[in-house]
C-alpha cells in the first residue's frame, strides 16, 4: 500500500476534478486537515482521513468481527449437534451461555460485519474512486465515523466479560426480557450491548451523511446521474434508507436504555408500559435494514457480473427506479415479523399483502441481473463465481420469504428454524458471498496485487458447499417443528428424535466445512499481499473510474483527475476493437 501524502498535487487536482467537493470545503473549514500532516505510520494508517484507508479499516474490523461471530456459531452449533458435551476450544455451553452466543452472533453479523463491510467498507473505498474525486467531502467526519465504530466494537466485546456475562435476549432484544436485569440476569451486559448498538448507529449516520453528500456534489465533470455506477447508487440509496429508518430504533433504544438503567417503564406492562411498542420501533427499522444491506450487495454483484460477462447491465434505469421504489416500500412491511405477537388480524392481512407485493420488484431485479448474464462472454474468475452464486442463493432466501409473508403459514413457521434458514439464505449471500465477490474483484485495486485463483476457487466451493449443507437441512427441521432459541432439544420429547438430530448434525458438519474453507481465504489474502503477482491499473479491463487510477491508488487517487464521457457499462460495443470502453476515455 503506497498511500503517500502528496499535498502538492492534491489541491489543484481537487479544483479540476471535483469542483463540488472543493465547494463543500467552505461548509467545513476544518475538513481535510489530514492532507497536510506528517507521513508517519500513525497518520497514514491509523488516524488517516484518506477514504481508502478508512474503508480498509472498516473492512479489517469487519473481518475480525466476522471471525468472532463465526466462532460463536461454531460453539452453539456444536452444542446443538452434540448436546451438553464440552465444545473443543470453547468449553461447556450452558443455557445462559448459549443464549448469549446466539444473541451476539446475530448482532455481530448484522451490525458489525454486514454493515461495516458492505456500506462503510466498500462505500468508503469505492465512492470517491468511482465518481472520480480525491476524497470524501468531509474527511474528518469520516475518520470520526470509523473511530466511533471502533469504540462500539470495543464496548460490545467488553459486554461479554462484565459480571453476569453478555446479553442473551436475542438480537431483537424484546422487552420485558431485555428491559430489566431482574428478568435477563445480565444487568451489565444488556445496557452495554444496547449502548454499543447506539454508538455504532451514530457512526453510520456520520458515514451516511458523507456518502450522500459526496455522491451528489463531488462527481467528476461529465458524470451525470445515469453515468453513476450501480454500486454507488445502491450504497447511496442504502444510506438514505438507513438514515430514514434508524431514527425510530434509536428512539426505542434510548427508551429501553432508560428502562434498564433509570427505572422508567416504557416497555413494562405491569407499570403502564407497552412491550409491543418496542417490536414496532424495532421492526420499523429492522425490515428496511435488510434492504440496507441487500442493496450494496446487489450493487457489488452488478459491477462484478458486467465486467466478467463483458455485457452492459441490463435495464440500468429500471433497476435504479426499482431500487428506489423498493426502498420506499420497505417501510410498510415491518409487521410481518409480528404476525403472532397479538396484532389485529386485519393488520396482519394488510401486511401480508404488502409483503407479497414487495417480492415482485426484488424478483424483477434478479431477472434483470440474469438478463445481464444472458449471452455474455462469461469468464469464471473467483469474483464472478461468487457473484453468480449470490444470485442463485439469494433467490432461495427471497422465495422462502414469500412463504413466511403469508400470515396463515407464518403462524406455524414463526420462530422455527425455517425462519432461521430463510434469513440465512438472504444474509449469507449478502454479507458473505457478495462481500467475497467484491473483495476478489477489487483486491488488485486495494493492494496492487492479484489474488491466487486456485485458492480462490477452493475457498468458493468450500464456502458454497458448507453454507448449503448448514441451511438446507434447517428448512426441514424448522418445518418439522424445531423452534429456534432452544439450547438442547433433548428436553423436548417430540423433537428429540434420531431423524431430526441427524439433520442437526449435518448442519453442524456444514458449519465446520464453511469455517474451514475460510482458511483458504485468509491464506490467500495474506500471501497475495506479499507474493501476489503485481496488478496493472486495470487488470479486468473494466470501465469504471477506479480502474483509471493506479493500483493501489495514491493519496488523492488520480494522477490526472478524470472527465467522464459515457456510462459505466459499455462492454462489447459493436464496431469497437476493444470489448470495453472506459468512462474516462474520450470518444
Amino acid at each position, binding site marked *: 500500500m503506497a498511500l503517500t501524502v502528496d499535498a502538492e498535487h492534491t489541491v489543484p487536482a481537487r479544483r479540476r476534478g471535483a469542483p463540488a*467537493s472543493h465547494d*463543500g470545503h467552505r*461548509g467545513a473549514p476544518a475538513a481535510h486537515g489530514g492532507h497536510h500532516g506528517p507521513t508517519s505510520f500513525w497518520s497514514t494508517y491509523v488516524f488517516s482521513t484518506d477514504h481508502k484507508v478508512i474503508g480498509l479499516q472498516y473492512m479489517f474490523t469487519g473481518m475480525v468481527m466476522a471471525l468472532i461471530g463465526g466462532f460463536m456459531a461454531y460453539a452453539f452449533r456444536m452444542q446443538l449437534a452434540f448436546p451438553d458435551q464440552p465444545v473443543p476450544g470453547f468449553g461447556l455451553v450452558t443455557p445462559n451461555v448459549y443464549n448469549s452466543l446466539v444473541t451476539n452472533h446475530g448482532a455481530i453479523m448484522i451490525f458489525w460485519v454486514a454493515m461495516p463491510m458492505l456500506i462503510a467498507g466498500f462505500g468508503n473505498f469505492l465512492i470517491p474512486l468511482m465518481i472520480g474525486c480525491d476524497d470524501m467531502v468531509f474527511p474528518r467526519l469520516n475518520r470520526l465515523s470509523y473511530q466511533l465504530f471502533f469504540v462500539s466494537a470495543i464496548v460490545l466485546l467488553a459486554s461479554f466479560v462484565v459480571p453476569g456475562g453478555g446479553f442473551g435476549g436475542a438480537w431483537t432484544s424484546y422487552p420485558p426480557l431485555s428491559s430489566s436485569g431482574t428478568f435477563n440476569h445480565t444487568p451489565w451486559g444488556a445496557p452495554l450491548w444496547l449502548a454499543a448498538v447506539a454508538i455504532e448507529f451514530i457512526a453510520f449516520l456520520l458515514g451516511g451523511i458523507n456518502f450522500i453528500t459526496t455522491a451528489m456534489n463531488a462527481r467528476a465533470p461529465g458524470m451525470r446521474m*445515469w453515468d453513476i455506477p450501480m454500486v454507488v447508487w445502491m450504497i447511496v440509496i442504502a444510506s438514505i434508507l438507513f438514515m430514514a429508518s434508524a431514527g425510530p430504533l434509536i*428512539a426505542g433504544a434510548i427508551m429501553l436504555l*432508560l428502562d434498564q438503567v433509570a427505572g422508567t*417503564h416504557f416497555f413494562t406492562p405491569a407499570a403502564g408500559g407497552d412491550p409491543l411498542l418496542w417490536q414496532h420501533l424495532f421492526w420499523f427499522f429492522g425490515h428496511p435494514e435488510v434492504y440496507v444491506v441487500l442493496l450494496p450487495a446487489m450493487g457489488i454483484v452488478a459491477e462484478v457480473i458486467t465486467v466478467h460477462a463483458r455485457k452492459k447491465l441490463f435495464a440500468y434505469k429500471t433497476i435504479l427506479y426499482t431500487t428506489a421504489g423498493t426502498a420506499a416500500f420497505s417501510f410498510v412491511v415491518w409487521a410481518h415479523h409480528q404476525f403472532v405477537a397479538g396484532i389485529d388480524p386485519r393488520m396482519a392481512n394488510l401486511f401480508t399483502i404488502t409483503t407479497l407485493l414487495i417480492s415482485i420488484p426484488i424478483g424483477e431485479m434478479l431477472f434483470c441481473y440474469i438478463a445481464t448474464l444472458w449471452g455474455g462472454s462469461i469468464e469464471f474468475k473467483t469474483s464472478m463465481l461468487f457473484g453468480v452464486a449470490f444470485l442463485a442463493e439469494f433467490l432461495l432466501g427471497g422465495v422462502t420469504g414469500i412463504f413466511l409473508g403469508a400470515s396463515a403459514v407464518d403462524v406455524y413457521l414463526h420462530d422455527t428454524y425455517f425462519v432461521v434458514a430463510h434469513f440465512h439464505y438472504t444474509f449469507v449471500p449478502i454479507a458473505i458471498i457478495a462481500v467475497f465477490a467484491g473483495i476478489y474483484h477489487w483486491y488488485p485495486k486495494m493492494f496492487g496485487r492479484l489474488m491466487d485463483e486456485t485458492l480462490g476457487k477452493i475457498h468458493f466451493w468450500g464456502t458454497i458447499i458448507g453454507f448449503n449443507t448448514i441451511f438446507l437441512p434447517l428448512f426441514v427441521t424448522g418445518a418439522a417443528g424445531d423452534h429456534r432459541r432452544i439450547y438442547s432439544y433433548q428436553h423436548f420429547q417430540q423433537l428429540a428424535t434420531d431423524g431430526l438430530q441427524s439433520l442437526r448434525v449435518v448442519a453442524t458438519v456444514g458449519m465446520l466445512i464453511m469455517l474451514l474453507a475460510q482458511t483458504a481465504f485468509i491464506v490467500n489474502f495474506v500471501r497475495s499481499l506479499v507474493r501476489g503477482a503485481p496488478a496493472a491499473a486495470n487488470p479486468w479491463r473494466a470501465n469504471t473510474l477506479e480502474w483509471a487510477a493506479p493500483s493501489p491508488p495514491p493519496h488523492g487517487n488520480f494522477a490526472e483527475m478524470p472527465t467522464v464521457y459515457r456510462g459505466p457499462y459499455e462492454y462489447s460495443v459493436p464496431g469497437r476493437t476493444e470489448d470495453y470502453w472506459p468512462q474516462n476515455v474520450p470518444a
Partner: protein
Amino acid sequence: MRNRPVRPAGTSRVASVMNAANGLAVTRPRPARRPVVPSAVLAVLVLVAAEAMFFAGLTSAFLVGKAGAGPLLWPPLDQPRLPVATTAVNTLVLLASGVALAIGQRAFARGRARSARRAVTLSLGLGVAFVVVQGSEWVRLVGYGLTMTSSTFGSFFYLLVGAHALHAVGALVALGWLARSLRQGHGSRDVLGAVGAFWYFVVGLWPVLYVLVYVW
C-alpha cells in the same frame, strides 16, 4: 473468445431504446457540474431528515403510551398539570428566534454584514431565553413531584421535551459559534445556511411537541 462482441440484441430492444434515450452509448459534450445544494447544507439536511425520523419515533411512542394509559392516567390524578400558558409564551420566544435568524440570513445574502450579525445575536439570545425558561419550569415540575420515574406520563414528558432541549442546546452552541465567526468577519453563506437549517428544524419541531405534549 473473450473479445467476441455480444450480439447487439443481447441488451434487448427495451434496453437499447432506453440506453439510447439515456445517452449511455452516445457521446455528447459533457457540461461541468455545479452542486444544487452546497455540501455543508446538504449534509445538515440529511442529518435533519434522520432527526425528523427520530422524533417521529418518539412522538408515535408517546401517542401509543397515551392511548394505552387512558384519560385518568394522563396525567395521573396525583401528578402536577403542565404549565400550558407559560410554555405558550415561551413557544413564541422560540419562534421569534427562528424569524430573527431568517432575517439575519437574508441580510447576509444581501451583503449587510452588520445587521446580519445583530440578527444572529438576537436569535441566539432568544434561543437561550427559551432554554432557560424551559429549565426553570422543569425545576418547578420536579419540585411538585413530576419526575422521569413518577409515572409513564412523566417518563414520556421528560423524554420528548428533554430530547428537544438537548437538540436546542446543541444548536445554540452552533449559533454561538456562528455569531462569533460573523463578528470576526469570516462567516460564510454556506455555514449560515447549514446552522440555519438545523436551527429551523429545532424551532419548527417545538410547536408540534408543544401541541402534542402540553395541549392535546
